[in-house]
Each structure stands twice: as structure tokens, then as C-alpha cells.
């Protein structure tokens, strides 16, 4: 059984702690994550902007990396969501199409794997802080990841989960959207952060570093000390302390 | 009901009704260019001829239009009814039904929630008393009702004070009935159907049942014989499918409360174009 880590370009480059937390956490359940190094990026930035040829160039590294994996796990709902577009992306190439469908069937967002496959909800963590949760759009709407993170957080000792007002509203990242439509994106992230601040939480947690980077960026800009973490990081830190 | 057959040129007898503005030069002495678009009075074509010409053009265009559609869809023209597996509401919904009391309660709740008024009465006598009382309260001077036997026997004409004018829709050729409706304080109609789940009534148009009676007056009274109260919208809509095209009236109107709008700063206002005060009187 080969279980592979799909690190995602963002975590690879900017948030390696997230990947490390995942590896360590899953090791505790006897799952030794492998890391096929030929992976680069799922291709979403190019795909979303309509540059599908370029997206395919990037996507091929992912298909190659995970060819012989049985499980592919990523700390991101949007990157796994992108893998669901691979059949469309390669619809005119029967070989790649078959490989794409195989990959889609075996890909999981992190909490999906932990809760639905390993059937773990209590990792034995302790995290006595006020926390609020932003449910990223692609993970919730396209993958249907709704209950899994909540189930995990419920079991963390001392964690006080404060509901985020208008949680389901997009944070405004949208990849190149944040650059191309900077002012609209800026308005959206400002509103999201307003809601985060309303909760008076110490920590903002999420399942997607793109959203977290976006929201953290505005928090720092506004000099607000709210800590921003990926759920894997929070759980691992909670486990280390316990 | 006048039948409008699928005739060729010159169909639609309603088209010629009352059209005298262009004169009736039908001797065909003036040359008619097929593509000529005539402009109102003093033209070479009568109204009927113009409509006929349009119809000819339209029928030719129809084939073209439909062929274009089937061409784009990538199949030959379909003339046979296709298999329609998902027709109407989901099956579980069609099994849903309330008891009579539940229907009345839910209808009432729904109607009240949108600003309508509901009264449960046991007889047409009580209906009459209700309307007379309201007429007094609101100093109503003009009442318009449908021309139905149940409303004849209701006896409003006798019960209302002498100064109040009660008109009966389309009961004679001399009156301008739409004007009567526009000036009416009260409109009185009987619901042909009612739906508890949405809090709606249905009124069907006919010679003796004007659409205007439930639309133009300021206050509307809808008498609902309790046995006509159904649970689901589909129970009423289904009857139209069953009746078939030729049996349908020109106007089928579902009314679910008083006229309203929130177009100004999201601020709700009642009584925009249709009646602002609506009474649903459930009888029986």
C-alpha cells in the first residue's frame, strides 16, 4: 500500500510546516507518507485562467508522481479539487484521460483521509485556545468536506470553537483573481478579516493554505495578532503538547 | 368558447374585431409587396391582411427555426413525444396530503403571514354579513362581483345600504366593465380552487368571471368553499393537464396574498398595483 503526500506548490515553497505536520501526524497512525519528488504544481493557476495547455504541462508531473500510489493526500481542498478537473483537461487524450480518472478516484483532502479512511476523529490533542474556522470554498462546495474538520476539532481538548460569521463567503483569493481584480479581492478579504476579528478568536484555522495566506496577509497588514494555522499544524501542535 | 382552429391565412377572428382605423380597402387594387411593412392608417393592407401576411412569414420561419435547433442539437427533427421520465414533482411529494383541518390551518397561517386576512365562516349568510360589515367600516360605495348563481343568491344588493352600487360583471352590453372594476372599492369572487401549502387561491376567467374583478378593485373578497381547498399546488395544476388545451380559459390566476413590492430600499409596501387588502373567506 503506497500512500503519497501531494504537498502542493504553496506548502512546498512557503508553508513546509504544514506538510511536516501531516507527515508526523499520520506516522502516529502507522501511515508512512511517501514524497515523490517529481511533483510540482496541480496546474490550477493556469487552468483557471484558461491556459489549459500550460496547465497540462504542470499536471503531467502530478500524474507521473502518483502513478503507482494507492492514496494521494494533500493539505488542500482546492488542489484535490483541481485533480477532479484532470479528466476534462485531458479529455482528448485517452491514455491521460484514463490516468486522470484513476488519480481522481484515489485522491483525498487531508481531513477526508484521516476521518473517512483511517476513521480517526480524536488524535489526542490539547489546544486550549479560542479558535475560529474558515471553510474554504473548493473543499466545501466541490469536495463536500463539511463534517470532517468539525469532527476533528470537537475532540481537541480545550479548544473553544467560535462560529465565524458568514463563514461560507469566499475569502477573495481565487488565485490570479487576487492579482487581476485586486480591488474586488481586497474588499472581499477585508470583509473576511472583519468577521474573523468579530469572533475575538486567538487562532484562525483552515484546510487550505491559499486562503490562509490571503487572510493572514490582510491580518498582518492591519497589524492584528490573530494566529493563522492549517488544521494539520494545529492538531500536531496539540498532540506534541499533550 | 370560440374555437381558433389551425387555419391558414386569415385565422384569428379576434384580430379583426373592432379594427376600423385603417379603413377596409379589401379590393386588392393596390399592389402588395410581400416584404412591405405597412405603417398604420392609409396603408394598402387591412389589419386582417397584415396579420395574415405575418402568419405566412411566421409559418415559413417556424420550419427554419426548428430545423436550426435540431441541427444544433445533432438529431433529426422530433415529431413524436419523447420519453419524459421526470414529469412533475418527485414521487414522495405527490403522496403528501393534509387533513381538512390541517389544510385550513396552514392556508390561514400562510395567508396571514403575507398580510392577507382570513375568516372562517359557516355559511354564505355569514359571508354576506362579513362583507356588509366591511363595507360599512370602509365606507365602500362601489362593489363589483362576478356573475355567478352563488353570488346572485348571496344577496349583497339587498343587504348593502341604498347608496352602495353593486355591479355584476359582464351582465349587460352597456357598461364599460373594466372601468367599473377600476372604480370599485370592493371586488367579490369565488375561488375555483385553493392550495393550503402555498396559501393560494385560483380563479379562472370566463364570460361571467372577469380577470379584472380580482385585480382592479382596492379590496378583494375571495370566497373559498372549503371542499375546494387542496394541499398541494400540483393537485390544481394537474387538473389543467387533464383538461387539455381546448378546455382552458384565457386566464388562470393564482393569488397568494395582497399586491406587494420591496423595490424601494428593500422596504416592504403593500398594495402596489393589485388589491392591497385581501380577505379570504373560507366557507363550510
Amino acid at each position, binding site marked *: *500500500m503506497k500512500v503519497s503526500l501531494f504537498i502542493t506548490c504553496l506548502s512546498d515553497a512557503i508553508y513546509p510546516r504544514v506538510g511536516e505536520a501531516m507527515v508526523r501526524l499520520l506516522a502516529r497512525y502507522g501511515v*508512512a507518507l511517501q*514524497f515523490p*519528488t517529481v511533483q*510540482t504544481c496541480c496546474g490550477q493557476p493556469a487552468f*483557471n*485562467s*484558461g*491556459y*489549459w495547455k*500550460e496547465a497540462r*504541462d504542470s499536471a503531467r508531473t502530478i500524474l507521473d508522481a502518483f502513478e503507482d500510489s494507492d492514496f494521494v493526500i494533500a493539505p488542500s481542498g482546492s488542489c484535490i479539487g483541481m485533480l477532479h478537473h484532470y479528466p476534462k483537461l485531458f479529455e482528448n487524450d485517452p491514455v491521460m484521460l484514463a490516468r486522470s480518472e484513476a488519480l481522481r478516484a*484515489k485522491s483525498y483532502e487531508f481531513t477526508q483521509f484521516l476521518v473517512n479512511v*483511517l476513521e480517526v476523529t480524536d488524535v489526542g490533542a490539547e489546544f486550549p485556545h479560542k479558535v475560529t474556522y474558515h471553510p474554504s470554498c473548493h473543499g466545501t*462546495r*466541490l469536495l463536500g468536506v463539511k463534517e470532517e474538520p468539525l469532527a476533528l476539532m470537537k475532540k481537541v481538548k480545550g479548544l473553544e470553537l467560535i462560529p465565524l460569521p458568514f463563514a461560507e*463567503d*469566499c475569502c477573495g483569493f*481565487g488565485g490570479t*483573481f487576487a*492579482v487581476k481584480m485586486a*480591488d474586488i479581492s481586497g474588499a*472581499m478579504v477585508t*470583509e473576511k478579516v472583519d468577521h474573523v476579528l468579530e469572533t475575538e478568536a486567538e487562532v484562525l484555522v483552515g484546510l487550505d493554505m491559499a486562503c490562509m495566506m490571503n487572510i493572514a*496577509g490582510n491580518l*498582518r497588514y492591519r497589524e492584528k495578532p490573530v494566529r493563522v494555522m492549517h488544521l494539520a499544524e494545529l492538531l500536531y501542535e496539540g498532540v506534541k503538547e499533550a | 368558447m370560440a374555437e381558433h*382552429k*389551425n387555419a391558414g391565412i386569415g385565422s384569428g377572428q379576434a384580430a379583426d374585431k373592432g379594427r376600423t382605423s*385603417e379603413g377596409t380597402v379589401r379590393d386588392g387594387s393596390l399592389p402588395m409587396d410581400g416584404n412591405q411593412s*405597412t*405603417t*398604420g392608417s392609409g396603408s394598402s393592407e387591412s389589419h386582417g391582411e397584415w396579420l395574415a401576411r405575418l402568419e405566412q412569414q*411566421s409559418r415559413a420561419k417556424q420550419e427554419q*427555426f426548428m430545423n436550426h*435547433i435540431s441541427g444544433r*442539437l445533432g438529431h433529426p427533427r*422530433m415529431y413524436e413525444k*419523447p420519453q419524459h421520465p*421526470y*414529469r412533475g414533482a*418527485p414521487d*414522495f411529494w405527490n403522496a403528501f396530503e393534509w387533513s381538512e383541518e390541517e389544510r385550513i390551518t396552514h392556508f390561514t397561517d400562510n395567508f396571514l403571514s403575507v398580510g392577507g386576512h382570513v375568516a372562517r365562516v359557516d355559511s354564505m349568510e355569514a359571508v354576506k354579513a362579513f362583507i356588509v360589515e366591511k363595507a360599512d367600516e370602509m365606507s365602500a360605495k362601489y362593489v363589483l362581483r362576478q356573475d355567478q348563481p352563488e353570488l346572485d343568491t348571496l344577496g349583497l344588493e339587498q343587504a348593502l345600504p341604498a347608496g352602495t352600487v353593486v355591479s355584476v360583471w359582464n351582465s349587460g352590453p352597456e357598461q364599460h366593465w373594466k372601468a367599473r372594476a377600476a372604480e370599485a372599492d370592493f371586488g367579490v369572487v369565488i375561488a375555483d380552487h385553493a392550495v393550503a401549502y402555498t*396559501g393560494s387561491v385560483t380563479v379562472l*376567467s*370566463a364570460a361571467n368571471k*372577469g380577470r379584472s374583478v380580482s*385585480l382592479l378593485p382596492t379590496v378583494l373578497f375571495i370566497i373559498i368553499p372549503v371542499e375546494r381547498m387542496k394541499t398541494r*399546488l400540483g393537485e390544481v395544476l394537474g387538473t*389543467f393537464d387533464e383538461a387539455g*388545451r381546448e378546455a382552458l380559459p*384565457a386566464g388562470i390566476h*393564482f393569488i397568494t*396574498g395582497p399586491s406587494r413590492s420591496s*423595490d*424601494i*430600499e*428593500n422596504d416592504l*409596501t403593500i398594495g*402596489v*398595483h393589485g388589491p392591497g387588502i385581501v380577505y379570504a373567506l373560507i366557507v363550510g
Partner: protein
Amino acid sequence: MSGAAKGAKRQTVKERSELALNDEFLRKAVKFTTERLRNGKKKASEEHGNWELWRERGRQIRLHTIAHLDYYLNLFVNNARANGVHVHFADTAQDAVQLTMDIAKHANARSVVKSKSMVSEELHLNQALESIGVEAIETDLGEYIIQLAGEMPSHIVIPAIHKNRYQIAELLSKEAGETLPPDTTALAGFVRKKLREKFLEADIGMTGCNFAIAETGSMVLFENEGNARMVSTVPKTQITLMGMERIIPSWSDLEVMATLLPRSATGQKLTMYMSGITGPRREEDADGPEEMHIIIVDNGRSLQLGDPEFQELLNCIRCGACLNACPVYRHIGGHAYGSTYSGPIGAVLTPSLNKNIAEWDDIANASSLCGACYEACPVKIPLHDMLVYLRRRKVEAGHGNALESMGMQGFATVMGNSSRFGGVLRLGKLGQKLVVRGGVIRTKLGPLKGWNTYRVTPSLPKQSFRDRWDTLDKELGLTKKDISETAQSKMEAAVKKRAQAAAEAKAEGKGGKGHHG
């Protein structure tokens, strides 16, 4: 204050958005309205229950009808004719306008009273009528207000939300010839009286069409004010503008639409009025139009037929739920989209109806692809996917942004090979030393300008994950380890389930879009 659509048409969505984002009242109004409607929908759909089942039902009925559109539309036309309706076909907006003017001329019309019709907005019909001396009066309260203001609607369902009561009082006072108070009841009362006169004296009543029922040749109108009933009851002639895709087979199917549409649009169980009109008045009736016309409009709709990526667009029942769900719409309002249809449906519909890709502006870029529109749509149109398809078509047609194209080629080169990717990361770590201060990058120069106007950019850490991997592996012995027994058995169970699901899907035939939503 709200001159977003007035005056010169701005070049791009971006520029128009800037106007909107700086209009405080507009933003508050749009936010308030969309929240109200969104909450209404949530409450109504939850109360009704089994919403996903109803959505799927609605989707299937619309898909079926569109897939057999030649049959159903033809059936509708023949039945409508049999009812005494004069049916006409308009390939283009121009055709529809010509037909309308022709009918108006033959009716010697001096005035036309109109109820809500998005199609008539699409056609810019009012200007055409005015040009031949026919007064065209919008009678829906919101449409009447924007007509007086000379503006386009900013929301499909509530067209004048960008106007405040003072502006509305000013507009209506001019019409009244006296000063009206900025009070909703007073203003609505004036409009009721004023339009009453117009209804009664108008020669022609024009309506749109929410649904056309193929099996009986009937057309259905949903409204709350009563003006659609007015214009189809009082004037002698009726003209109905109908998009060619607005068909459902039967009255039973109407129950599904009547369940989905009002709840999705405003959170109502049913609109105050739902009218089914089957032909002109009968000879013995004393009201209703004597002459009834239906103009069936194509104007780019047939372009979507046979296009697997866009045919579903024709499912749309114009409820506006996508507008209320869209976070972008909520911030910029309807006028920023620059055309008749706004919000997510507008972002897709406007370019799709227009064959000329070169004329599409950046409207499809005004989206973060969050998918809220798809989630909200009562007939499950995958608008978020369609936006990507539009972007792709623009690029493939050679109309992509030059700078962006170069950037994407760079992206492909780097990401096409993991060593190159690793190399770029190393370069980045070096290069960023110029701009990193206190662990973050704040510079507003170059490509980071847009981002850093509202945020700081994180710096690249010393070690990327792939740099760290060998150490991690050594410490935990990952590549050497075996999976534990418990984990193994759980994963094997999961693999079995996957195989089962795949077999079932194959047996049913490939269905759906494979979304988990």
C-alpha cells in the same frame, strides 16, 4: 452618487468595479439586499425540505426540455396558434424590435405598458418604441424608477436597489409635479395612481415570459405587484417576449418550477400572482386582450445548443439566486458587469450570447471561482465551470492578455519539471533578500502591487518542503517503514469501497459531472 451606469460606458469590468467599490451607499444597499434575499432563500428551502431532490428534479426537467427543444418549442407554437395567438420568430434583437414596432404601428399605439421582461431589456426596446413616437412605460415599481433615471437594472429581481429613497423621491416628484416625501408608502401610492391611468389608457400591454407550457400553448407569469396581470388584462393588444428556451412540457412540471423559483429568488413560497395565460380573450369574455402576439427570441440562445460546455446555460430560470450568493456581486453590484444581465449568470450569459469573442471584455474574470453560484442555483447550472471555459476560449482564440500569456508560459516551463521548480525556489530565496523586511514583503512595486495594497506577502522560508524531506525521512524512517496493520486494513477497505462505487457508476452509465457537491 450612483452614477455607475449613467453617462459614458466604461471600458472594463475592473474600471466599473472601481466606481462601485467607492460608492458607499451602493455597497451597503447591495449587501443588505443580497443578504436579505439569501437568508430568505435559506429559510424557505430549509422549511420546504429535500431541497437537493427538488433541485435535481428541476435540473432534469430543464435538461430534458432543452435536449428536445425542437419538439417542445414546435409543440408550443402550434398550440399557441391554435389558441388564437399570433406567434413570431426573431433570430436577432433587431428582428424582435422590428416586429414589435410593426405591431405597435398597426395598433396605432400611442402608449405601451410593460411588465418585467429581461428580454426586452436585452433588446433595448424602449428606445426603439420612443423613436416612432410610442410611449413605453415600465410598470414594475423598480423598473419604473430606473426608467425615469435612464439607467439599467442592477439586479435581476430588485432592479433599483442602487437607489436610495431620497433619489427615488426626487425622480417621482418630477413626474408628479409636486414634492413627494421620501416615504415608501407615499411613493408607492403615487406610482399606483399614476400607473393606473397608464394601464387603462394604454393600447398595448407587453410582458415577458417566465415559462411557456408546451402541451397547451400557455405562458406563465410570476410577479408580486400585479402589473403583469394588468398589462395582460386591460389593453386591447398584448405582446409577449419569450426567450426561446423558456419552455416546460406541462402544468405538472410547473409545480417544480413554482417550488424552486420564488424560494430561490426571494424566499417566498409563491409570488403573490402566478398567471397562466392561454391565448387572447375568448369572444364572450369582457376583459383580456383581443389580439395576442408572442415573439420568440433567439438572439444568441441557439448558439448554446449542441455545445456540451454551455447548453446547460439554457436551464436558467432567471431567479437571481446566483447574484445573491456571489461575493463579487455583493461588493460591486450589478452595473459593474456592464450589461443587461449581471452577477454570475450575467458573467456567463453576456459573452455566450455574443458570438464575437473579440468583443468579450474581462467580465468572465470578475470571479474567484468560489462555486457559491453553482451551490445556489435551483437548476444546478455549473456557472463556475463555465467561467473557466469562457476564459479558455478567449485564450484559445488568441485574445488572451499578452503579459499574462507570457507569465503562463513561464509557469509551464518552471512547473513542467521539478528540478526547474526547485531551481526557481532557490533563486527566489536569494532574490527576495532585496525586499523582505521582518519576514514579510510589503513592497507595492511591480506584480505585487495589487496584492500588497491590502496584504503583506510572506517570504520564502529557508527550507522548502522538498529541501526538508530527506531529513524528515531519515528521522522517521518513512521510506523504509511498512504501513501498520490497522492502517493497512482500513485503507484496503477504502480501496474496496472505491472499486464498488466505480462499478456502480459504470453500470448506471456515466452520469453527472463527478462533483462531490
